[in-house]
Every structure is written in C-alpha cells, then in structure tokens.
C-alpha cells in the first residue's frame, strides 16, 4: 500500500507496510459494510405515503444481537490488529539487534549533524567523521543511532525506512535500522521546531560496501592531513 508512494528500503519497512495493509483490509471491510448498509437503509426506508415506521425498541435480545454480534467481531479484529501492531513495534523499537556500527545524530535549529565512527567502527575516536545534513551508511549492515537534540524537539524521519523517532533535548535515544537497497533519500524533520522547520532537509546516502569504504577513506586522509599541517 505505502510502497506505491515511497520505496521500502529497510529490513522492517515491509513489515510496517504489511501491518498497514492488514489494518486496511480489516477496517476497510467494516467501513464498506457499514456505509453500504447505511445508504441502503436510507434509500429503502424513505418515507412513503400511508406507510408508518416500525416501532422497534431494540431492547429485546433478538434485536440487540444485531449490534452485539458485530461488536464481538470488531473485538476479534481488534485483537488481530493489536497482536501484529505490537509484533512490528517490538521488532522496530524494542528489540535492537547487535549493531555493526553506531552513528550519532544531533538535531538543532535547523540542521542535522551526524557523527560517523570512521574506519575503526568506534564512536568517540580521532577518526570520527562529522558531517552536516548528510548521513552515509553501508547497505545490509545493522546500524544503531544515538539521537540527541541541542535545543527543541525534532524528529528524525526517514520515509524509505518507515522510521521516525523524536529527538528530545537532555536525552540520548537509541534506535536501529538496516538498509536493504542503495541510493540517496530524504531525512526529514517531523516535529515542529520553529520557523526553520521546513529548512531541515538532510539526505541519507546508502552505499555499497566498496563505495562506503572509499568514502570513509576519502574523509580520513583529509582530516589527518589537515591535522598534520603546521
């Protein structure tokens, strides 16, 4: 349903799309049934000369079951939806798989800055690569992100991953993703953050292992060379 509009490029994107499809089918059934009955009754029971309405209290058991049985069936549908919603939620937000690397993401008015761990795959070392509004990752690897904010609330949203997480000042929020396709896509801010809210576009660049290694290498020497200069 959603991948008609936006590509699905993370390992859990399809699960979220399928959950949306499941909900769509279940509530769509009830929606269509209710609207059809509703409009059928409006047409069928239009006032006619000399014909009175029926007197139905709806309090007898034989009448009430017309609303109580559907209500039980709605409950069954709800149980299905809850089960799959929690399953998807657990995989995306609660159970974080072991990371290949961790990146640091900082939102501020009005830019995203990213700290990549660099060649040693460790954050907080000298070869960390800092970028603004550009996140470089490798396809097929599990990444953790540590999300922070310097000022107000922001929300780190990557539509192709179906991922969204608010950044809250004073907290470091950890999440994960694993891309399963390459390319360059939007990172959007999804929480109003002041007059520049529409000016926080960043890009996520998902690269093949070779390209990513080359990018890391490109960044390394420049930084080192800059440091060596007197």
């Amino acid at each position, binding site marked *: 349903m959603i991948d008609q509009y936006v590509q699905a490029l993370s390992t859990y994107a399809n699960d979220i799309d399928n959950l949306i499809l499941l*909900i769509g089918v279940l509530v769509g059934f009830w929606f269509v049934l209710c609207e059809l009955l509703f409009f059928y009754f409006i047409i069928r029971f239009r006032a006619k000369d000399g014909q009175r309405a029926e007197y139905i209290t709806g309090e007898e058991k034989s009448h009430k079951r017309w609303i109580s049985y559907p209500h039980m069936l709605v409950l069954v549908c709800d149980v299905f939806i809850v089960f799959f919603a929690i399953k998807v939620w657990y995989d995306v937000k609660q159970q974080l798989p072991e990371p290949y690397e961790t990146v640091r993401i900082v939102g501020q008015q009005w830019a995203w800055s990213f700290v990549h761990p660099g060649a040693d795959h460790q954050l907080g070392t000298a070869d960390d690569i800092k970028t603004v509004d550009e996140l470089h990752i490798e396809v097929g690897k599990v990444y953790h992100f540590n999300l922070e904010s310097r000022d107000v609330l922001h929300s780190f949203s990557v539509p192709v991953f179906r*991922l969204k997480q608010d950044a809250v000042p004073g907290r470091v929020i950890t999440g994960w993703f694993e891309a399963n396709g390459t390319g360059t896509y939007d990172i959007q801010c999804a929480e109003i953050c002041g007059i520049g809210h529409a000016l926080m576009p960043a890009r996520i660049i998902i690269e093949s292992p070779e390209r990513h290694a080359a990018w890391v290498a490109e960044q390394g020497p420049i930084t080192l060379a800059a440091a060596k200069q007197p």
Partner: protein
Amino acid sequence: MAESIPADATHGHHDHHHTEPSFWSKYVFSTDHKMIAMQYMFTGMAMGLIGAFMAYAFRMQLAFPGISVPGYGTVNPGNYNALITNHGAIMIFWVAMPVLIAAFGNYLIPLMVGCDDMVFPKINRLSYQIFLLSAVVLIISLFVPGGGFGGAWTAYPPLSAKAEYSLTGAGSSIWLVAVALEFVAFLLGGINFVTTAMNSRAPGMKIFDIPIVVWTIVVASILFMASVGPLIAGAVMLFMDQRIGTAFFDPVKGGDPILWQHLFWFFGHPEVYVVLLPAMGITADIMCVFSRKKMFAYKTFLYTIFATGVLSFTVWAHHQFVAGIDPRMANIFTVTTLLISIPIAEMCFIYIATLYGGSIRLTTPMLWALAFVAEFLIGGVTGIFLGASGADIYFHDTYFVLAHFHYTFFPIAIIGTFAGFTYWFPKMFGKMMNETLGKIHFWGTIIPFNCIFIPLFMLGAAGQNRRLYSFQHYPELAGQGMQDLRIFATVSLLVMLAFQLVFFYNCFISWKKKQKDAGPNPWKANTLEWSAESPPPHGNWPELPTVYRGPYEYSVPGREEDYFPQNVPG
C-alpha cells in the same frame, strides 16, 4: 427548581424590560440561558470565520508557494506557524467547544429537561464573559511584537517555553493566558450543565427519559472537568518557565519536556470526546425525529457513552509513541486505544439500526445528521492505523494524521453544528429555514470537504510531514504530482468557503420573516423543547411541563399520530 420564580412573574419581568431601553440587560448582561446560548453560538461562529480565514491563508501558501495571498499578503515561515497554531487552537477551543457544548448545552438542557433556566444563571453569565475575554486575549496575541504564537496548538516545550527558540515571546505567553481563561469559562459552564440536567428535571422525567443529546453534553462536561486539571497545572508551569525562569520543562536545568506532553494529552485526548459526544447526541436526536423511529437500544447507547468517557482517560500516550517514551509503554496504549473502537463502533451500529424500518424524510437537518455518521466513519476507521503502534511509526505527524482528525473534527464541529443549528433554528428564531438553500449549502459543503481531505490522506501516505510551510527543500515531497494534490485540496477549500455564503444568506432571509412561522413543533418531535413557544420566552413555559414517557416514542402502534410528545398524558 424549587427556588425559581414563578414562570408568570418572570414573563412579566421580561415584558417590562422590553419597553425600557434595556439593550445591555437584554443582550449583553442577560442571565437567560437562551440568550447566553446565542452569545456563545455567534461568538463561536465569528471565531470560526477567523479560523477558516487562517486555513485559507495557509492552504494558499501550500498550493501556490510564495504568492501574495489576497486579503492576507505573503505567508512567511513565522506567519505560517502562527496561522496553523491558531487555526487549530481556535477551531477546537473557540469554535467546537463554545458551539457544541456551551451553545447547544445552554439552549437545550433547560428546554429539554423542562425547567425555566440554568441552576446557576449568574455563573452561566460569568462563564460567557470569561469566554469572550479569552477570545479577545487570543486575538490580541496575534498582533503583539513578534507575531502570534507559532509552536503548534500542542505547544510542546522547549519550543513553546523559550522566546529564543520560538521567536514569539509575547505571543506565546498571551496565547497561553487565553487558553487558560477559556478553560476557566468551560469549568464554570460545565458545573451548570451537569447540575441542571441532574437536579432540575421536570416532574416525571426519569433518568432514562432524558434525551441522548442532554446525556452527551453532561458526560462531555464531566470529561472536560475531570481532564482539564492537569493541563491547567501544566499551563501555569509553562507560563512560569516562559516568564520567571523556572525549569519544569527545561532539560538543561533538570526539567523534562516530555512531562508537558503527558499533561497536555491527558487532557487532549478526552477533549476529542468532549466535542465528539455532543455531536453524536445531536445526530441521534435528529435521526430519530426524521426517521420517525424510536432510538434503537437507548440504554446501550447510553452505556457506550459512559464507556467511551471512561476509556478516553486511558489512551493519551498514543500521541506519543515515537516521542521518546519508554517503548514498552506503547504496547499498553495500543491495547487501550483499540479498545475504544468498540463503544464507538457500537454507536455507529446503533445509528444504522435506528434507520431500519424507519420512514425517512431527507430534510436539511437530517442530511447533516446522516452526513455526520457517513463521514465520521472515515475518521473513525483511519484512527485505527494511528492507534496501532507499529503502523504509527510511519504515519505519526504526517498528513495522514491531519486528514484523520479533520475527518473527525469536521463532522463534529461543522457538520454536527449545522445539523443542530438547522434543526433547532425554528425553535430559536420562530421561523423555518429555506430548504432549497439549505440543501445547496449542504452539498456545497460536503462534496468540497471530501475533496480537501482525501488528497491529504494520499499525501500523508506518501510521507508528507505536517507543519512544513514549503516542500521545496525536501526532494521527495517536491514533485509536481504531489503539488497537484495540494492545489486540488486548496481549490476545494475555496469552493467550500464560497458555499458558506449561502448559509449566511439563508439565515438572514429566514430570520427576516420571508419564511413562514414555525409554530411550536414544526418537525412533530417528542422532546420537551417543542412544547414551548418558538422562540421560547424568558422562563420557557407559562407552567413547567410534566413528563410521562421517554423522548423517542415515535410511530407507537395504536396511536393516530406517529409521535407522542413527552409531556402529553395518556
């Protein structure tokens, strides 16, 4: 009401004032529940026009970025944020609440339970005066240096707490004062509604003889009064953060911004039901009258109202799934949120069942009532996507959410209001409205409404986030296909706004006596207000009515007429 003045004496008092130049005491400082209802109704409608103008201004910017909007000018990002913030706040706090609860509650409760006025008429008057003050304060907040508050109607700190972040220091504080004043007004009103409905019923009116619309307003008032406390506390804390440097929500000094979200949504979600329930009650009453049917399973409907009310206190954190709360909490709130679909679905089934076997006349009020059910269903089912935590990760804060809650709030605040207004207009003004103009207005509102918001569902599914004043910086949102949808929505809005002129013209010519006199009971309805004159005088009845049966005894077998008013013995 034991302490009330005899109705005849009240009537004489009223006539006496008529001859005197007493404009102030009749229209401004009146304690008559019907006059206060009219004050709320017309203040609410005037605020609705302001809110609609704001929607027009920012929709024009979204469809045609950078143009100088006729009647407004260029919408810069600061203006845009102030427009969306105040559009949301106005439509909920200054339109839906005053019209659905205060105006209909004030007008209908004494007339429907059969008493001469509210239990506390002076508190009632005070309630409106504070409400009017809050509206004035809100409008002032738009014109202070820095401009109106632009932190969204949810006012999440730290953006709302610090002037250096929002750039609207004065605007955000004055906005907060306006919202707090509005809450005070509705606390005062709510006390009146509950007390009057419970204590001042006409002799013979038992608890299950109360019309559903009165029940819904009473339950809504209780929900409001029970949920607003935390938010008033929150508003005071936020005001102190803004003005005297406390740090309730400032993480740098040990506060927590997410605390505000809990306080806000603990109120904010019941608030949805506060405005939903009266609209559902209005709809239920109108559907019974124009299908000539007894309400299907009245008691079950009543219990679903109570169940909805109780459950509405347990779902607030579904607004915060991805806000940084403990992810385990989302599981609990997914369960409670989906549970609330049960009573709401049951209400919809009862509406449908009530139509079965009816004798349906599609008058203008009935069209509005039916449209409420048909459209609200869309709002209801799309809510399931958002209540299911896993799916909400994608949909949160997209236009899907926006379209969803407009499919609930538009049926509530606009369709429900028009349903009630056109239905009770003959009672309020003693004249029938023009049916042809009423139907033109109905179709001219309903069709464009769907044309506005269905494209927004599609934009939301395509990942378009809310509250962006321009999409040109996001490559995935900047395509021409998406822009075409935005233009279509905006043009539909313009069409819908143009058709509202038909409504005002219809009110005007109907009120100016071009239409026939309504008489006391033009719709042949059962409830007590239709036994009073149209419009009812001060004191409502020369002698208070006695109630003999429930409100929905239509088409009773063995009776010549197909209605059986509550106050007719036999």
